[in-house]
């Protein structure tokens, strides 16, 4: 099975071949590197940009205005913060012009912890991104969704923020991407750039298919009846594993992968919470003015009388950064044990 970086790469290849993507660009996105996480190796429309995040976002806006279809990369989400006003403008352009302009552009950026990236390579962006109206925001938790969400993002006529959980980029999937070969080694040989001199290298793309994950649709990744766990990105696999482990203890947890943060699949969440009466929201952004807080508020306002326990949020600690030492990172953002404990505790909580 492909890993997430390969899945993104294959989706981008499909998009430049079939969906009109004209430019995949950013710092070190083009040859020879093909992206710091290898997600853009071998793509014919990939090119290296100046080391200038504001220029990258501005370029994407301009290209989109002129009928091109850009996919711009900010190398790490930690470096996207100096572009916030441009992101706000990209998000408000359709609205501010009363529908006259629209910007079909994708911005992809790796987010979150998990690679011991220290203070400046571990930031999350979901809380900030969901604060910018006019963007669609997606975040995959596995390679197949990464592929399908990128296909949808490239078909959009509005700005799409594509958040890549960097801890998952090298993790192989459990489901096959339509068209990828059976053999992982063969896939690697076909589409991974070789070490050393790459000047003559050309990828051998598999015959990929137009598999799209619709924007705005979540997914139940584990059905359950006692407690609902809603997550996305890096913490989603932790929730799934916790739910599987807790089954042995008689806890039956339903796990939902949001996949899209805006516009999100409230109907799916609502249906599940009405059934279980308990909900835990899990993500790794800092917990104050966290997107999960919005979901908690909506849960309280709309589902109060269906609840058996207060809705809970498990998120990153509200500290200025994630420290490099293992002990510091583990203490700053939810780990497997934290997730398991939080589900266990909520499942048994009584008034």
């Amino acid at each position, binding site marked *: 099975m492909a890993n997430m970086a390969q899945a993104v790469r294959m989706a981008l290849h499909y998009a430049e071949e079939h969906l009109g993507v*004209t*430019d995949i660009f950013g710092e070190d996105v083009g040859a020879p590197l093909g992206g710091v996480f290898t997600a853009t190796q071998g793509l014919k429309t990939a090119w290296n*940009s*100046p080391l*200038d995040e*504001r*220029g990258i*976002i*501005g*370029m*994407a*806006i*301009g*290209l*989109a*205005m*002129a*009928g*091109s279809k*850009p996919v711009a990369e900010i190398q790490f989400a930690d470096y996207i913060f100096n572009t916030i*006003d*441009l992101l706000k*403008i990209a998000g408000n*352009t*359709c*609205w*501010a*012009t*009363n*529908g*006259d*302009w*629209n910007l079909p552009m994708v911005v992809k950026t790796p987010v979150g912890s998990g690679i011991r990236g220290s203070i400046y390579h571990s930031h999350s962006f979901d809380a900030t991104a969901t604060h910018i*109206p*006019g963007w*669609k925001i997606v975040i995959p938790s596995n390679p197949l969704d990464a592929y399908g969400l990128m296909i949808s993002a490239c078909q959009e*006529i*509005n700005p799409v923020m594509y958040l890549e959980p960097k801890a998952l980029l090298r993790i192989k999937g459990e489901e096959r991407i339509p068209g990828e070969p059976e053999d992982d080694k063969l896939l690697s040989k076909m589409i991974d750039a070789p070490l050393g001199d790459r000047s003559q290298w050309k990828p051998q793309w598999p015959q990929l298919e137009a598999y799209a994950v619709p924007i705005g649709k979540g997914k139940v990744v584990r059905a359950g009846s006692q407690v609902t766990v809603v997550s996305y990105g890096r913490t989603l696999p932790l929730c799934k594993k916790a739910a599987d482990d807790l089954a042995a203890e008689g806890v039956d947890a339903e796990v939902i992968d949001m996949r899209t943060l805006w516009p999100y699949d409230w109907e799916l969440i609502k249906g599940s919470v009405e059934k279980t009466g308990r909900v835990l929201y899990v993500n790794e952004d800092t917990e104050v003015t966290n997107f999960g807080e919005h979901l908690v508020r909506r849960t309280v306002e709309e589902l109060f009388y269906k609840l058996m326990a207060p809705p809970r949020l498990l998120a990153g600690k509200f500290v200025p950064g994630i420290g490099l030492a293992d002990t510091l990172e583990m203490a700053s953002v939810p780990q497997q044990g934290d997730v398991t404990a939080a589900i266990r505790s909520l499942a048994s909580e009584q008034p």
Partner: protein
Amino acid sequence: MPKPRLLNRDEDSLPLDRELLVRMHDLMVKARVLEERLIQMYKQGHGYFWIGGPGEEAFNVPLGLLMKKGQGPAYDYLHAHYRQSATMMALGEDPIGALRQMKNVAADPYSGGRNFAGHFSKREWNIAPVSSPIEVQYAMAPGTALAQKRHGGDGISIVTGGDAGTAEGDFASCLVWSSRPGNELPILIIVTNNKWGISTPGETQHGETHIADRGKAFNIRTKTIDGNDPINSYLELKEAMEYVRKERKPFLLEAMVSRLYGHSSASGANFVGNEQDCLAVFEERLEKHGILTRKEMDELRNRYTEDMAAMARQVREEPLPAPETIWNHIFAERK
């Protein structure tokens, strides 16, 4: 560097056709009267805020006249700032749109009552939406220029802004992205230098002799010109545009202009009186050369004044956007 054009005020004849001179004058008057009407609307309480370009007509009218107007990469893109009404008039825009935006009525063609006066946007003519945060347009213009370079033809991207905004990093971004070796872009980078940044004199903040000099470090062709002279502006813009259209490379043009009503309504929007009025100077020349009489020019101005007063009265009666329209156009939908 091309030699600076000598401005001979004792010229025997004017170097442009009479028809063009009359047309430029007409548009300069039209734009000036429009701005004065917008200021008056603000002062009468028919708008919350005014910002615009009185004093930049001598440069902005020729810019509009020389633009290749249309939609898509075959035509010119304008990434403007909020002092560009004269360019819009020169492109043939109906002034009532600006009045509607001032009054923020539902029929405002640029933003449906959502944005300040002077914040034009018109996709049909490649007029990118103007924003209040300054200089961001300089980061975007290379994007349309790259699409145009690939598209072929002679369409160019034009970006305008003030001198104070060049302190922002986006100005540097524009220079870097426009001049990448082997990937130079067809972009006319314009700075209209009125020597002010809101209330702060430029010379207290900027050490460069000319802003245009900054282009030299990037091997971008540059020039600083007198933007208060419409004839000079026309000829210089024509030359710069021809270079960008043909060579598909950037040009940085700095035009010295006046700011006749201060920064905006935030600074009172009153006539300053101590800066050169490009329209008054041009009218003297036109009269001296027998192109137009004082009477003709006064009649023209009165006619525009009456027209726009009538338009403003009409706009005052138009409905505001309905409250529920805040939800419209957050996302574009496939037609």
